[in-house]
């Protein structure tokens, strides 16, 4: 499948090996079956648990995610150490001091101030150390490096339930607006301005960076970068993203993709950005249909007209059953890989399915609930008309 999530072969074993190493020293000291069993279970879970699949955070492909993972790994081992130590002592006490028949009343100890103070100071030092390190990391990751290539800027706007990507300046002179698929050149910092048009969403590409919320009227800035030396597959590779803040019905289906490509590929994609040519009869008919039925919400001939998008937004916010709503810009739909916020691959069959009734693929979406032609459930379009729309949108010759 062309869309297969990015995977890294071989790295699985390196992640699962280290826990067992750290645990093994302790096992010999504490000759307890129970402990052994528990640790085996934990190791087993580690081994099966840390898979490198699609959304995994164990598999950083850029400096931001890497630093965050680094901190997490240190934390993880610090916490595992504290866990083993404290639970170990607990278990030891449980086993060693269980009541034996005929045992006299144990010594009535009330406390030990020196011990208390020691056991307060040690954790304080530990957490302060980790805390200060994380402060440095925070400030470190605040801005992209100033040396190296120029950053590419992208404005991201979240909508219920899809993402809009706007490239004000791709270097090709084109002003690009697209949806649900972010294309980025490799080895170049990407700066993003995140905003939302409706409710709070959250922008998250685990392999590139931790998430940042997208809040109406707040503009949040973040950056990340994909490093070619961390990617051991031929470019372009596609990474998964997902909205991470509950944003209503289709929150689970609000996904997106990030395609990491060579600068050259990126440039040619940008240069090719434009409306479908509509140079077959079939497509021409589709174009007509599109103008009649779809342009209330969708734009298909380049960047959205700001006035139009504003009126769609206010139509949406004021409610009402059938109103214009912000909808993905379909100019470059034919160059995309996925449909409806990354929930399925973009194939002719899926697009047909979507156009017949979007509700089947994505329960709750606003296309089926707000467009006139879906008010009866299935589209008030004939199969032939749907074929024409597909031919137009995907530029099928």
């Amino acid at each position, binding site marked *: 499948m062309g869309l297969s999530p990015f995977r890294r072969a071989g790295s699985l074993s390196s992640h699962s090996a280290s826990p067992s190493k750290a645990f093994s020293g302790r096992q010999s000291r504490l000759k307890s079956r129970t402990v052994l069993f528990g640790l085996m279970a934990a190791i087993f879970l580690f081994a099966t648990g840390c898979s490198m*699949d699609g959304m995994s955070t164990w598999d950083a492909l850029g400096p931001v995610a890497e630093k965050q993972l680094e901190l997490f790994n240190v934390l993880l081992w610090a916490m595992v150490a504290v866990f083993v130590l404290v639970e170990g002592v607990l278990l030891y006490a449980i086993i060693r001091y269980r009541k034996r028949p005929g045992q006299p009343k144990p010594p*009535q100890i009330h406390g030990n101030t020196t011990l208390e103070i020691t056991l307060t100071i040690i954790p304080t030092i530990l957490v302060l150390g980790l805390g200060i390190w994380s402060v440095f990391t925070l400030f470190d990751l605040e801005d992209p490096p100033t040396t190296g290539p120029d950053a590419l800027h992208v404005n991201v706007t979240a909508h219920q339930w899809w993402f809009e990507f706007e490239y004000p300046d791709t270097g090709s002179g084109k002003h690009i607006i697209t949806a649900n698929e972010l294309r980025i050149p490799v080895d170049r910092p990407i700066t993003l301005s995140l905003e939302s048009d409706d409710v709070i969403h959250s922008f998250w590409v685990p392999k590139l960076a931790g998430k940042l919320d997208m809040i109406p009227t707040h503009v949040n800035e973040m950056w990340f970068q994909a490093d070619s030396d961390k990617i051991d597959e031929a470019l372009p590779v596609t990474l998964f993203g997902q909205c991470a803040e509950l944003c209503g019905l289709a929150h689970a289906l609000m996904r997106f993709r990030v395609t990491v490509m060579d600068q050259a590929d990126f440039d040619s994609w940008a240069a090719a950005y434009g409306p479908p040519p509509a140079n077959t009869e079939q497509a021409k008919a589709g174009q007509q249909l599109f103008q009649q039925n779809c342009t209330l919400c969708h734009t298909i001939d380049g960047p959205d007209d700001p006035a139009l998008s504003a009126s769609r937004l206010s139509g949406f916010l004021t409610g009402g059953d059938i109103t214009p709503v912000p909808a993905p810009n379909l100019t470059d739909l034919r160059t995309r890989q996925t449909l409806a916020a990354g929930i399925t691959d973009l194939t002719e069959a899926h697009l047909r399915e979507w156009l017949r009734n979007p509700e089947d693929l994505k329960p709750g979406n606003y296309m089926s609930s707000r467009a006139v032609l879906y008010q009866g459930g299935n589209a008030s379009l004939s199969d032939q008309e749907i074929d024409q729309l597909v031919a137009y949108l995907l530029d099928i010759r």
Partner: protein
Amino acid sequence: MASITAVIPRPTSYAGLWGWITTVDHKRIAVLYGVTAFIFLLIAGAEAGVIRMQLASADNDLIGPGRFNQMFTMHATVMVFMVIMPLSVSFFNFVIPLAIGARDVAFPRLNALSYWIFLFGGILMHMSFVVDQVPDAGWFSYANLTEKPFSVNRGLDYWSISLLVLGTSSVAGALNFVVTIINMRAPGMSMMRMPVFVWMTLITSLLLVLAFPVITVGLIELTMDRNFGTHFFIPAEGGDPVLWQHLFWIFGHPEVYILILPSMGVVSEILPTFSRKPLFGYPFIIFSGIVIGIMGWAVWSHHMFTVGLGPVANSVFTITTMLIAVPTGVKIFNWIGTLWKGALEFTTPMLFALGFVALFIVGGLSGVSHAVSPSDFQQQDTYYIVAHIHYVLFGGSMFGIFAGAYYWYPKITGKMLNETVGKINFWLLFIGMNLTFFPMHFLGMNGMPRRIYTYSAEFGWENLNRIASFGYVVLAIGMLVFMYNVWQSRNSRRVGHDPWDAPGIEWSIASPPPPYNFAEIPQVLGRDHYWIVKENAEAAGTPITEPEALVDPSSIHMPSPSYWPIFTAVGVALIGGGLLSHYALSFVGGVIAFIGVVAWSNEPAAAPPKEHH
């Protein structure tokens, strides 16, 4: 006004159903709280079951997104506000007066009022299912998803108004316990002799009293936005949805300590009892509890690391949050110190208490890893958080509550729960809990977001989800075993007044305790009062075998039952119900509540002695 009380004669007897409805006896109110909250636990647990069934396999379409959102919202709201909190209050009610050597709480009728408002508030929340307009924005219901037009039906109104009603109940209850603990201790019971459970109740109650008004304001603002045209959280009109987050979490973080401190108190009673050793480092445990209570106010933004508050705010909240691990650690170390060199007896309450310590450490440590904000950017809103909250809430709070239930059951009923069944109960819950929630750590780190009703197979989350869903089955069986244990106990033999050879004052009186608790208010000798008493008796050659003698109840002047608490509670509930249906109903409710309050203050707390039989 006095005429109202004259028209309706005051209830005089504790017999029958009316006896329960008009009761002001803290022990009966405790039972009411406990039973009601347990029923809510079954409901919320069943909702968790629906969640787990839906997530058991990839691309499942058992229930749609709408229902799913309702399920986790109600699951969490009910678990937090209608299960853990009232179960804790149930223990407060039963144990506190007994543990401080008092005959009742300071305001018995206020206590009854708290219960009835809680019950009606809970019912009001669940009326949303009846009209099928169920809250669905999660337990912290972030604005502006909660605003029209994003949440058109009345679900969120049910949520906010029911929580306002429940909040009244919690604050009234907490006020009562603060006064009771500070003011009604038996002679000799200085602050530094109070059992740890009493201390934790005091801190919890103070947190409640101070934290609830904050969420109350948030809820009022939300309700006004939805019903009266304000724009507190509507960005298009200048409002700021992030303000809701601040208000919620300034309440929300103290709230999580409200949920855990009572269980920490319970455990601090049980570990010494079954180690036959006094609590190790008593002053440090108390002091760390106080520190947690104070520091809990300075960490709320760790729930908002991804909001974009900037590196300075994130740094500050990272450090304050990490520091909170220190006082919590002090408690853990002292519990282990209590076990050290003890003579541990693994009764069911002890097993649950040890389970609490073991599981809470796991939850606490994952909490510390959220506290580090750069790494939390990856964890926030994933199943890694879900793992954390269930380790602290189920492994922590719930295990503490189970420990307390097994521990005090003989005192409440005079009968023991079966120990063998209890141990089966424990192991099922312990294993089930780890099966359900441990895999969630990995799910989270593998990128599974929370609050998603479906996921596709290609992400590789299916196997771990299966394990988790299987774990739920084990948990459910564990719960059924507990219910069986309670049910079978009706036939079990009566036990003595002190089956555990425990140190608390409550064990010196009969099981179940007489209505007046203590025939004579005890003179407290020390921290582990009853151990000292028993030791002294032993030394004197007259070991104690009998509880304190019973006396003629009519010689002790006790608060009398009253209609007015439930009457007033009906009024309060109607005010809320009216906001959800017809405002006229709210007005009627207001009038009822007003009459109730006036009649109440006209009625003496205790009927004149002649009314006693």
